[in-house]
């Protein structure tokens, strides 16, 4: 049961092989028994999950089941969930029981899904290793001495360790794709605006995007059919008709033009990563695709531009955490300034404080043009690189990450060392483009991810390209559980 994909579990529920209550109960028991070694969940919502499962079984018995009815999933603890603690991995929100649902949560509820609980994450989604969580580091199920990636590290670890069939994540600079790569699962960051940001705690509003983290591309498409779509409560939601993300999954890839950016395959790239990614590209050629070298000349500027834009937006967004309206408040404040400063100083961890300060500095009087405006100009250059490249090719491929999973503690002393982990992923957020990571190999027992980048709104094509690869290969079926870890 634990090795089945969402699509297979949906079939099992339809066939009556098991009920949603049985399925949910099995996962809850497995989480209880196994998650001590991974720390992938912050909160397990056992009671609510069983109530949702019971309701789903009743819906099915009445003949009203939809494709997602009764399927259990986990949610990153960044999505506000009514009546459930929504911590965002921070002491600041350790006491925050959300009084409302994020649109994403609402949509899964309406689809009859079961929520097993809320997954661990880097504090306020700021991190690439899941070590900045107030609730402690998450361990990579392939090697518990290694990080699972971040910031959606709990979601990635839970899916890899078979503690949830699928999970939601969010991606501001790679936070779905990088942990998906390091944990050997499939992750999709949709085009900016596809998935509602309402009730998804904001980090950098022009970059944040929710998406699915799953066992397969087919499951990601099933998740998108629930998650995606216009939402009037999100001012930057894309006003487009909803579409069936499963519709093109099986289309043949004959004639698919794949661009390989020379900047992504430099001599600095880890040889084991390069080898696995090249092998995946060979597989695509066997499936009928052609490849050509392309250039994204401003690739090296993505990290500098990102580390102005994301902290600037974060410093503005996180000013709402003031100890007054909700969240952490310090003991016995002497005056209002003391209340603000100590509530924020004690409520936020070190990485969040660093980014708030970088952003505050970049936006402060006299520095705006040199930093924020400059970064926005660079952002346009990066976007233009992709627009030019995608006028010549259908999709772009490369490694998701420059290395496989690294050791816990290895990169915590130097923030910049950690920032460079996202070199291949964060340019997509700056451009607003969709991208996926799919498992494409292993090195020393650790998974390697292939990143597939598509044009704006081309999620169906990305899912098709990923699905055909998964029909031809077995990498996505490997699990640390079946590998005996």
């Amino acid at each position, binding site marked *: 049961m634990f090795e089945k994909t969402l699509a297979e579990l949906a079939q099992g529920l339809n066939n009556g092989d098991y009920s949603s209550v049985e399925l949910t109960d099995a996962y809850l028991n497995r989480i209880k028994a196994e998650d001590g070694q991974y720390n992938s969940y912050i909160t397990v919502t056992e009671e609510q999950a069983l109530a949702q499962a019971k309701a789903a079984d009743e819906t099915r018995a009445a003949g009203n089941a939809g494709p997602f009815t009764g399927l259990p999933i986990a949610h990153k603890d960044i999505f506000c969930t009514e009546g459930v603690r929504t911590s965002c991995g921070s002491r600041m929100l350790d006491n925050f029981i959300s009084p409302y649902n994020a649109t994403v949560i609402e949509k899964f509820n309406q689809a009859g899904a079961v929520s097993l609980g809320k997954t661990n994450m880097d504090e306020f989604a700021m991190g690439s290793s899941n070590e900045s969580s107030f609730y402690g580091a998450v361990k990579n199920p392939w090697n518990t001495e290694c990080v699972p990636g971040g910031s959606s590290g709990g979601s990635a670890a839970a899916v890899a360790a078979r503690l949830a069939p699928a999970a939601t994540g969010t991606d501001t600079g790679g936070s779905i794709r990088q942990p998906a790569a390091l944990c050997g699962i499939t992750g999709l960051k949709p085009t900016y605006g596809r998935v509602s940001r309402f009730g998804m705690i904001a980090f950098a509003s022009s970059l944040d995007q929710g998406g699915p983290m799953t066992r397969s591309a087919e499951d990601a498409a099933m998740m998108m059919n629930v998650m995606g779509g216009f939402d*009037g409560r999100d001012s930057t939601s894309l006003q487009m008709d909803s579409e069936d993300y499963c519709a093109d999954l099986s289309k043949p890839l004959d004639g698919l033009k794949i661009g390989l950016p020379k900047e992504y395959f430099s001599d600095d790239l880890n040889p084991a990563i390069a080898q696995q990614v090249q092998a995946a590209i060979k597989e695509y050629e066997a499936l009928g695709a052609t490849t050509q070298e392309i250039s994204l000349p401003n690739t090296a500027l993505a*990290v500098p531009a990102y580390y102005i834009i994301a902290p600037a937006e974060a410093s503005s967004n996180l000013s709402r955490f003031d100890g007054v309206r909700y969240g952490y408040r310090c003991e016995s404040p002497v005056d209002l300034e003391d209340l603000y400063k100590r509530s924020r100083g004690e409520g936020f961890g070190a990485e969040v404080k660093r980014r708030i300060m970088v952003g505050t500095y970049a936006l402060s009087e006299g520095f705006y043009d040199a930093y924020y405006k400059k970064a926005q100009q660079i952002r346009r250059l990066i976007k233009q690189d992709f627009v030019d490249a995608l006028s010549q090719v259908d999709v772009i491929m490369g490694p998701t990450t420059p290395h496989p999973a690294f050791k816990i503690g290895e990169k915590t002393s130097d923030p910049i060392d950690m920032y460079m982990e996202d070199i291949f992923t964060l340019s997509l957020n700056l451009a607003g483009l969709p991208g996926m990571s799919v498992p494409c190999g292993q090195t020393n027992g650790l998974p390697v991810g292939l990143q597939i980048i598509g044009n704006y709104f081309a999620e169906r094509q990305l899912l098709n390209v990923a699905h055909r690869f998964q029909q031809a290969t077995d990498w996505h079926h490997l699990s640390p559980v079946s590998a005996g870890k």
Partner: protein
Amino acid sequence: MSLDRSDVEKIAHLARLQIDEADIPEYTQNLSNILDLVDQMQAVDTSSVEPMDHPTDAVQRLRIDEVSEENQRDKLQSVSPAVDLGLFQVPKVIE
């Protein structure tokens, strides 16, 4: 770009963040390193490039001016640290 202790103290004040005295040297070093990294941008001539503030250059969506949300004050204040008579409580601001 190198910051010194007083810069970090000023930034922390602007951000209303209390920073422990003992942590200031490390923050000073971290922030200086991050600013060195982002300074790579300065080498690029962007004088003719329009700043990009939205991925798809979308404009603010407008809607009809009608009530769309009901008042949920009590529910939303149920998670507040200190509330009295529907008002958020803070230390005295005016003497």
